[in-house]
């Protein structure tokens, strides 16, 4: 079963890359951007067919390795 997780920086954490992307977008003429925050996206294929168990497994991975909870939040966005 495939589970996806999105890792984003917490609100208070400075995201210089997001800022530069924002400025570049501005320079290209995309003037309607308020803010850009860059994150990470993971697709994980697990040997588990129960959606609840698969989600719990990936959640545990997020807590222990994929995200650093001091600066990042994680969200499981889909299971299929």
């Amino acid at each position: 079963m495939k589970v996806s997780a999105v890792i984003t920086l917490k609100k208070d954490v400075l995201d210089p890359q997001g800022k530069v992307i924002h400025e570049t977008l501005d320079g290209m003429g995309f003037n309607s951007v308020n803010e850009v925050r860059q994150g990470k996206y993971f697709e994980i294929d697990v040997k588990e067919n129960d959606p609840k168990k698969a989600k719990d497994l990936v959640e545990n991975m997020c807590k222990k390795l994929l995200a650093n909870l001091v600066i990042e939040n994680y969200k499981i966005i889909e299971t299929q």
Partner: protein
Amino acid sequence: MKSSVITFPGSNCDRDMDVALSKFGFKNKMVWHNDQELPKSDLIVLPGGFSYGDYLRCGSMASKSKIMNSVINFAKSGGLVMGICNGFQILVEAGLVPGVLLRNKYLQFICKNVHVKVDNKENTFFKNLDKKVLELHIAHNEGNYFCTKDQLKEIEDNNQIAIYYCDQNGNTNNQINPNGSIKNIAGILNKEKNVLGMMPHPERMIDENLSGEDGSIFFKNLLNNIK
């Protein structure tokens, strides 16, 4: 005095650290990250470099390697552990010192000499150091120290900030902050003061002809403190 330097895949300051420690009288051993057990040591050093190519987050993969269980146990039982640069990043990912190291504020890899102020000498690493400001070298892309407000309060209350970026006279301010670190923090201790993580490389300042000798001062003092 015995020391061990851990080599991770992608470490590149491990040999420099070996040379530095040996020069000042440590009997040093190199330890591979996939080993389970540490040789008997008075000091463990996690060296600088780019372990695992900085994949995911700097130091995150190395912090889960086999040898790290032994390093964590060693630190928890009061053993001296020092992480330099990437080693500092590994320490924060392993939870041995608080906070994280973010990308440098101005998105540039910084490679230059800096001055650091030694504020807290009530620990084995800096006790009796007769210089307040050291000139050391930094070379990093992710050295921007960050922690939550609660963590910062705890760190300050417990006197855990080891060194600050400063000018040559020891003044700390925003202008001389190279990477955006909170409070100009360049190095930090754990609560018990037996684990030190710092971005500057003392092992690069041990030769009067090639660099400065402020690293020599640090290592000589450290050896005397451990004896």
